[in-house]
């Protein structure tokens, strides 16, 4: 009879700045004042971007938006640790991470305005990923590619607590481990997956320990502590660059709604929200910076003014871009080279668009006539007539709908 322990594990938790803004020097990453101010500016910019984006949605200028309010430290701290030659693979609530990576606000807004222009890939950031957790595999692939080429670079991906229930996230961590991928898996545990709380997502005591089963390191960090996150992310990326992937669980809170279509009052208490408001990542960091003399009232006002001016310009630019959307472009990027059937569909689309408002569109008739001319086959009179009548009816309807809508 043999019964013995064959494996054991533990999960560490890191906090550098406590909720009062006191710094634990032992956990603090090396950052100069310029970086401190930039971290602060990015967090503020992100919060204001989220607020303005939600307001745009409320006014009907934009579609569904997923604000990351409350998660600024988790995102800014981790994205700040990435080099320009490295990749970020986000989920769909990562405005703060995108902004940290230098993405302009108007592109984030374009995506929310329903425009692919906002999902164009620039500066090694993949587009938002809507299917929960599926992007973790892309980060494993990117990190594997970096490993194959022996690059001194890594990839960082974001997902939430809900995503850890998805098979793709486990598969990603597992293959990353086997393939020595240069990947850091950053789980922003914001406590809620729409209405399902963290404890109903998994019986696992921590989410970081999900890394253990995949054979990679897992660590927890206070996700509302930007300096703690920065330090942990730097260490994780350094490990990943050497072929040892890491999962980081950043404990944070989604202070706002899941998306603009959601009402958190249905499933959580104001008391809970109040507890987390007190742990706000920006307030905490502000306290620390003021204590250190890096920030004062004048500097704060200056930063706030700059952000408002920037947002004003960026929102104007987003609106201008929205006016220039060309519908037929939906056909143009399906394949590198558009195949014949798709070219034909594009032509049909453009012809029908052009015919809107005309009383007797030529398209329906044209199809039959074209066929008759080409084929020389007899078309029964009744077929031609009924098609023509049907087309005329459709034309009338279209006319009513489109009055004044098209120049």
């Amino acid at each position, binding site marked *: 009879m043999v019964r013995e322990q064959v494996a054991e594990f533990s999960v560490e938790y890191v906090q550098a700045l406590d909720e009062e803004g006191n710094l634990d020097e032992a956990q603090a990453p090396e950052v100069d004042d310029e970086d401190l101010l930039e971290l602060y500016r990015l967090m503020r910019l992100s919060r204001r971007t989220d607020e303005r984006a939600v307001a745009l949605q409320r006014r009907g200028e934009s579609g569904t938006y997923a604000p990351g309010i409350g998660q600024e430290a988790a995102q800014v701290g981790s994205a700040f640790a990435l080099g320009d030659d490295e990749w970020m693979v986000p989920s769909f609530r990562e405005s703060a991470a995108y902004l940290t990576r230098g993405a302009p606000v108007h592109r984030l807004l374009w995506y929310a305005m329903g425009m*692919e222009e906002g999902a164009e890939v620039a500066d090694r950031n993949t*587009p938002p990923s809507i299917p929960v957790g*599926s992007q973790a*595999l892309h980060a*494993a692939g990117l990190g*594997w590619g970096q490993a194959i080429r022996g690059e001194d670079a890594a990839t960082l991906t974001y997902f939430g607590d809900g995503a850890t229930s998805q098979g*793709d996230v486990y598969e990603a961590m597992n293959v990353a481990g086997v393939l020595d991928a240069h990947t850091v898996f950053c789980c922003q545990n914001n406590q809620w997956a729409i209405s399902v709380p963290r404890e109903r997502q998994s019986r696992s005591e921590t989410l970081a320990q999900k890394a253990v089963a995949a054979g990679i390191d897992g660590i927890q960090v206070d996700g509302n502590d930007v300096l703690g996150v920065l330090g942990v992310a730097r260490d994780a990326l350094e490990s990943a660059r050497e072929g040892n992937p890491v999962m980081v669980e950043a404990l944070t809170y989604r202070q706002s709604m899941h998306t603009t279509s959601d009402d958190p009052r249905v499933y959580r208490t104001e008391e809970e929200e109040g507890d987390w408001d007190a742990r706000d990542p920006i307030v905490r960091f502000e306290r620390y910076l003021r204590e250190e003399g890096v920030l004062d009232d004048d500097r704060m006002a200056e930063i706030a003014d700059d952000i408002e001016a920037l947002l004003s310009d960026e929102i104007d630019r987003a609106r201008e871009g929205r006016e220039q959307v060309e519908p037929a472009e939906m056909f143009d990027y399906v394949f590198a080279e558009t195949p014949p059937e798709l070219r034909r569909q594009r032509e049909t689309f453009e012809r029908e668009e052009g015919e809107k408002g005309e009383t007797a569109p030529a398209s329906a008739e044209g199809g039959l006539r074209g*066929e008759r001319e080409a084929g020389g086959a007899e078309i029964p009179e009744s077929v031609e007539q009924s098609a023509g009548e049907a087309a005329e009816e459709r034309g009338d309807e279209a006319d009513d709908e489109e009055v004044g809508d098209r120049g």
Partner: protein
Amino acid sequence: MANQIRLVEAVRQALDEEMARDESVVVYGEDVGVNGGVFRATQDLIEEYPEQVYDTPLAEAAILGLGVGLSAAGFRPVPEIQFASFAYQGFHQLVQHASRMRSRTRGTLGVPMTVRTPYGGGIRALELHSESYEAGFAHVPGLKTVVPANPADAKGLLTAAIRDPDPVMFLEPTSRYRASRESVPEGEHVVPLGEAEVVREGEEVTVVAWGAMVAEALDAVESGDADAEVIDLRTVSPMDSEAILDSVRKTGRCVVVHEAPRTGGLAAEIVARINDDALYYLEAPVERVTGYDVPFPLFAREEAYRPDADRIRRGIERALSA
């Protein structure tokens, strides 16, 4: 120069030559490395290309999702899904990411991934090893679906697929892997995607088929009396409509053959395209000879399910007698 080789060897040859030609081509999947693939399509490649051939964990979503990431990193991923019916475990990665990445990023990120996978029935395999889901793949915008029917096309089409800048499902008919040795050009051999081939010319009726059904269709025609034209579609999406329409305009009659279930199968799409552009050339309704709308049976009933030369010949007779 040409070699007499089998389809599975032609696949291996294409992989070999493309990896030699382009270091960014990476072959990976379950058992493709040391074991050389369960059909031996990747035999010995890992020894020749240790930096380009990898065994992965048993996880189809991972295999396909990794390809999206590898593509972003500048590779040309050529993953293998061990049997097409297990692509469902990673289908979301194809539909939600690989196929739409170019479109949703307005051409700023492509996924030049070629997913090789054995498909179709006829080898008395275990349950869920014989399905023909090409219509499902063809229904995904942004994804190309290619089915070779013979060794030369297997090499030429796979080469074109690997070089293609967009994702390709490359369905290899298992029953043809070792069915015959045929002439395959040595060295570079590219068969463009999206082009069907008239494999037998005829005047009375057009028979459209792909994959394993091409051989069955040719058998049916050889053993019958009709002067039939046989078209091997080769790329089922995007489909070479013109090749079909040109032939139907000549013959006025058409039989479409596929192993996949009848309802919603690609024969229905082909009938619709004939309706759109060649209706008044038809002398008879287009016939469909297909699998039935039943789950692919275990192999004791496999032959009853799959169209064969006999059923195809009867389909041709119906088309001619109408």
